[in-house]
C-alpha cells in the first residue's frame, strides 16, 4: 500500500523494516514469556564432565533376602553401588529399615573379596572410615540416624566399578488380629524439620539445614530425583511353623509358591512403596502361645509370645471423648490425604450419640473444629464431615502444636479419652514429640494411624506406645475400611490390663512394663534367663477377671532371638532417655551393650575397611549423595530434588533443557527496545499520514 503512494522510498523502507522487526520480535516474545514462567528455578546439582571435578549419579540397586522362621525374620539387605562416572566416588545413601531391626552385621563385597565389618563407637567408626577413605582404601560405613533410617557410605569406588554392601538384621514380626506381618520399608517420605537453623552446621548435605529442634536435620533429609527408579528385588522364604490359610503381599503383586509349610516368593519392584507380606494361620491352628530360645556365650535367651483371651470386655464400652487429629501437611498431598479423609469419615460415622468428639487438622498451625469437644449428635457429625471433606494438604508439619492441642483438657467424669492421630509421621523431631505425649497424656490413650506409601514407622509405633494405645497402617485406599474396622474394635478398650510376668529370679525381661493389650494383640516379651529349665507365668486382668497363663521354656523351639533381646533392651534404655533419664549414663550403657553384642545403635556404627590399596594418590575423590526415588502417590517440593525434572522445562525451551544454570536475564531490555521501536514507528506513521494529507 505504500508503493502506489507518492512517498520517499527511503522513508517507506524504514517503516517496512521497523514493521518486520516488530513483528518478528513480538512473535518471539510471546512464547518466551511463557517459558520464563515455566522454566522454574532450574537449580541443578549435576556437575561437569569436562572439568572432571564432579561425577554424575552413582546407581544403587538393592536385593533383600528375608528368612522368616516362626515369629522372627532374619534379613540380608544387599546394596550395590555402581559408579558410572569417570572419577573415583564416595557414595552416600540414606535408606529405611524396619524400626525394630537389630542390625548386627556388615560385609563389604569388592569383586571376589568379602570384608567383614566390625562395630565401633560412632565417632571412632567415622574416624576409621575417614582415615581409610583419605588413604585411598575402599571402606564401608553404616550409621543409624533414626531406628528406622540409616546411612551407608562407601569410599573409593573406582570408575566403572560396583561395590556391594551387605547388611544383616533380625526382627520380631508383628502379630495382630490373627495375622502375622513382615513389613519392609522401601521409601522415605521427606521429613519436615521444625525449628530455626543453627549457626553451626554439621555438614550433612540434606535439603534441610540443622535446626535447634532437629540438630541432625541435614543428615535425615536426603534429596530426591524425580526420574529415579531404584530397583529392588525382594526374596522371602517363610516358614511359619504351622499350616497357613493365606499369604498376601499387600502392595506388590507377587506369586507365592509353597512346598509343605515353606512358602517362597520373589518380587521385583522399585523403591516407591513399603513392602508388606502378611499371613494367616489356618483357623484351627491359631497359636495361643509360642516360645523361642537361644544360647549365646553361656547366656540363655527366650522370646515369649502369648495371646490374651479373645473375649475381653463384654459389656457396652463406656462413653468416650474421641479427639481425631488429621495431618494436612504438604507431605500428605496426593493419595495420602484421600486415605486419611476416608479413614476419618468412617470413624465419624461410628460415633455414638453419647460420645463426645472433636476434629483437629494441622500443618503449620493446628486448628480444632470445635472450641470444646462436642456431643456427637446429627448436626455436629454432619459439620465434621463437611469440615473433613474440604481439607487440603499443604504446608509444614508442626506436630507439637497438634499434640498439645489434642492432649489439652480432660474428658468429663466417666468418659474414656482417646486421641486418634492420622498422619504419615514425616517429622524429624520424634523424640521431642514422644516427650510431649508422655508429659501431657493424663490418662488418655493415643492411637496412631500411619498413612501413605511410606509412613515413618518409628514415629507410629513409639508414639502409640508412649500414648498407651496402638498403631495401624493404611497403605492403600482399598484397605481403609478393613484397617479402620480393626481399629474400632481396639477403641472399645483394652482386653488385658495390669500385665505382670513371673520369671525365675535373676531374669531380665523387656519391655520392663508390658503395656495394656488391645483386641488381637499378643504379649511379646524378650527375656534373658538364668536357666531354660523354668516356667514363666503371665498374669493380667481381663474383663474384670484375673487371667493367668504359664509357659515351659524347656519346650521352647530354637530361634535366633538373642540379638532381639539386646535390641529390646536398647529400646528400653532409649525410652528411659525420653522419660528424662540421665542421658550420659544411658548413652554409655547402650554403647557398652551394643559393642558387646555387635549391634548398630545411635551411638555405635558398623565399619569395614579393605586394606588393599585402591585409589592412587594422584586422583581426586568426589562425594555423590545418591538421590532417593520419590515415594508412590507423592510429589516432593522442587527444593528437595537433586536435579530438576525435565517436565518442568517448557517445550520451546528444549534446547536449554536441564542445564544446571538459572536463567539470569530478564526481558526488560528487549521490552525497552520493542517499546522504543514501536514509538518510532508510531511517529513515522503519524508523520507520513500528515504528509499525505498535506500533499
Amino acid at each position, binding site marked *: *500500500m505504500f508503493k502506489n*503512494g507518492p512517498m520517499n522510498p527511503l522513508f517507506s523502507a524504514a517503516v517496512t523494516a521497523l514493521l518486520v522487526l*516488530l513483528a518478528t520480535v*513480538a512473535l518471539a516474545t510471546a512464547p*518466551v514469556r511463557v*517459558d*520464563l*514462567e515455566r*522454566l522454574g*528455578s*532450574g*537449580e*541443578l*546439582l*549435576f*556437575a*561437569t564432565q*569436562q572439568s572432571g*571435578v*564432579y561425577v554424575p549419579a552413582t546407581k544403587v540397586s538393592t536385593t533383600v533376602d528375608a528368612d522368616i522362621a516362626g515369629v522372627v525374620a532374619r534379613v540380608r539387605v544387599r546394596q550395590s553401588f555402581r559408579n558410572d562416572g569417570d572419577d573415583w566416588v564416595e557414595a552416600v545413601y540414606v535408606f529405611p529399615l524396619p524400626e525394630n531391626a537389630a542390625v548386627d552385621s556388615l560385609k563389604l563385597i569388592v569383586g571376589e573379596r568379602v570384608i567383614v565389618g566390625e562395630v565401633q563407637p560412632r565417632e571412632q567408626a567415622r574416624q576409621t572410615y575417614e582415615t581409610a577413605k583419605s588413604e585411598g582404601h575402599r571402606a564401608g560405613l553404616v550409621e543409624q540416624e533414626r531406628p528406622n533410617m540409616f546411612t551407608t557410605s562407601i569410599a573409593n569406588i573406582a570408575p566403572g566399578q560396583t561395590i556391594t554392601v551387605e547388611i544383616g538384621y533380625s526382627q520380631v514380626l508383628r502379630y495382630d488380629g490373627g495375622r502375622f506381618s513382615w513389613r519392609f520399608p522401601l521409601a522415605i517420605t521427606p521429613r519436615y524439620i521444625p525449628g*530455626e537453623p543453627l*549457626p553451626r*552446621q554439621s*555438614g550433612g548435605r540434606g535439603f534441610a539445614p540443622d535446626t535447634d529442634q532437629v540438630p541432625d536435620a541435614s543428615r535425615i533429609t536426603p534429596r530426591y530425583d524425580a526420574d529415579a527408579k531404584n530397583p529392588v528385588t525382594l526374596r522371602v522364604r517363610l516358614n511359619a511353623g504351622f499350616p497357613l490359610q493365606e499369604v498376601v503381599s499387600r502392595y506388590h503383586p507377587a506369586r507365592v509358591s509353597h512346598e509343605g509349610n515353606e512358602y517362597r516368593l520373589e518380587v521385583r519392584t522399585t523403591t516407591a512403596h513399603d513392602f508388606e507380606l502378611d499371613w494367616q494361620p489356618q483357623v484351627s491352628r491359631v497359636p495361643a502361645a509360642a516360645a523361642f530360645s537361644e544360647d549365646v556365650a553361656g547366656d540363655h535367651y527366650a522370646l515369649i509370645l502369648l495371646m490374651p483371651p479373645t473375649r475381653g470386655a463384654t459389656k457396652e464400652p463406656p462413653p468416650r471423648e474421641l479427639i481425631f487429629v488429621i495431618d494436612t501437611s504438604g507431605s500428605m498431598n496426593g493419595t495420602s490425604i484421600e486415605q486419611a479423609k476416608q479413614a476419618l469419615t468412617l470413624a465419624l460415622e461410628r460415633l455414638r450419640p453419647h460420645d463426645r468428639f472433636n476434629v483437629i487438622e494441622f500443618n503449620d498451625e493446628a486448628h480444632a473444629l470445635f472450641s470444646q469437644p462436642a456431643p456427637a449428635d446429627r448436626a455436629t457429625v454432619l459439620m465434621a464431615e463437611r469440615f473433613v471433606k474440604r481439607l487440603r494438604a499443604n504446608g509444614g508439619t508442626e506436630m507439637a502444636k497438634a499434640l498439645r492441642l489434642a492432649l489439652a483438657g480432660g474428658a468429663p467424669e466417666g468418659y474414656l479419652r482417646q486421641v486418634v492421630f492420622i498422619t504419615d509421621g514425616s517429622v524429624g523431631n520424634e523424640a521431642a514429640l514422644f516427650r510431649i505425649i508422655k508429659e501431657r497424656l493424663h490418662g488418655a490413650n493415643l492411637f496412631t494411624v500411619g498413612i501413605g506409601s511410606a509412613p515413618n514407622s518409628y514415629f507410629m509405633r513409639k508414639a502409640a506406645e508412649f500414648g498407651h494405645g496402638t498403631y495401624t497402617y493404611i497403605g492403600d485406599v482399598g484397605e481403609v475400611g478393613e484397617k479402620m474396622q480393626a481399629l474400632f474394635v481396639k477403641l472399645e478398650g483394652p482386653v488385658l490390663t495390669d500385665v505382670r510376668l513371673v520369671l525365675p529370679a535373676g531374669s531380665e525381661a523387656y519391655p520392663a512394663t508390658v503395656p495394656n493389650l488391645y483386641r488381637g494383640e499378643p504379649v511379646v516379651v524378650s527375656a534373658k534367663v538364668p536357666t531354660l529349665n523354668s516356667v514363666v507365668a503371665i498374669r493380667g486382668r481381663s474383663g474384670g477377671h484375673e487371667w493367668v497363663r504359664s509357659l515351659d521354656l524347656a519346650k521352647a523351639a530354637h530361634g535366633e532371638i538373642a540379638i532381639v533381646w539386646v535390641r529390646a533392651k536398647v529400646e528400653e534404655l532409649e525410652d528411659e532417655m525420653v522419660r528424662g533419664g540421665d542421658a550420659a549414663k544411658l548413652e554409655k550403657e547402650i554403647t557398652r551393650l551394643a559393642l558387646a553384642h555387635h549391634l548398630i545403635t545411635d551411638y555405635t556404627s558398623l565399619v569395614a575397611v579393605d586394606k588393599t590399596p585402591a585409589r592412587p594418590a594422584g586422583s581426586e575423590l*568426589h*562425594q555423590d549423595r545418591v538421590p532417593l526415588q520419590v515415594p508412590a502417590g507423592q510429589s516432593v517440593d522442587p*527444593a528437595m530434588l537433586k536435579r530438576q525434572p525435565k517436565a518442568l522445562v517448557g517445550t520451546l*525451551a528444549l*534446547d*536449554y533443557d536441564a*542445564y*544446571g*544454570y*538459572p*536463567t*539470569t*536475564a*530478564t*526481558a*526488560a*531490555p*528487549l*521490552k*525497552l*527496545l*520493542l*517499546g*522504543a*521501536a*514501536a*514509538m518510532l*514507528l*508510531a*511517529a513515522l*506513521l*503519524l508523520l*507520513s*499520514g500528515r504528509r*499525505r*494529507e498535506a500533499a
Partner: protein
Amino acid sequence: MKRGRAWLFGAGALLALGFGVWQLAGGGYIYLKAQLAQVLLERSWRLARAGAADARPWPWADTRALLRLRVPRLGVEQIVLAGASNRTLAFGPGLMLASQLPGRPGVTVISGHRETHFSFLGRLRAGDLVELETPDGRRHDYRVEGHRVVDVRRSRLRLGGPADELVLITCYPLGGVHPLGPERYLVYARAVGQGAYLPPPSSSRR
C-alpha cells in the same frame, strides 16, 4: 480515498503507540521492581539478623533474605534471597538452594539478572573482595580469582569440592537482549578466611 488512507495511518500509529507504551511500561516495571524490592528486603534482612522467626520481606513472599552481599570496591550492597527461581530473581540475587551456604566446604552459587542486580559482574576484577554476611552475623570474605563464559548446553555446574568457594552467575553477553540465551558469565571466588563477628543491627524489637 484520501481520508480512508489517513484514517488507516492514524489507527496504525495509535496501535504502535499503544504497543510501545505497553512494552516500555513492562520493561520499566522490571527495573522498578528490582530497585524497590531491595528496600523491602533490607528490612527483612534486619529482622533475620535480629533473630525473628518470620522474616519474610512482604506477607505473601515465598522467599526470604538469606545473605548480604558486598563488593566494597564497587560500592555494591545487596540482599541475597533464598532460591534462584525467576520469581525470586526479579527481586534480588538468589542463592541456589542446592548449593552450599558460605563457610562450609563446597560451592556457594549466587545468580542474578544481568540487567539489574548483577549488572556489576562485568566490572569485577581478579583480586576484588566479595563479602557475604550470614544472619548469624558472620562475615565470609571471598577473593575473586577470575571469570569464565560458559555455554549451558555443554557445561554443568560443579557444586562439590573440598574448598569453600563462591560462584556468581549472570547471563552473557553482558549487554545482550535475548532473555533465554544459552551463555552465562561466571565469576569465581575463593574464601580468604572468616572475617570478624558483626554485632546484630540495633532493632526496635529488642
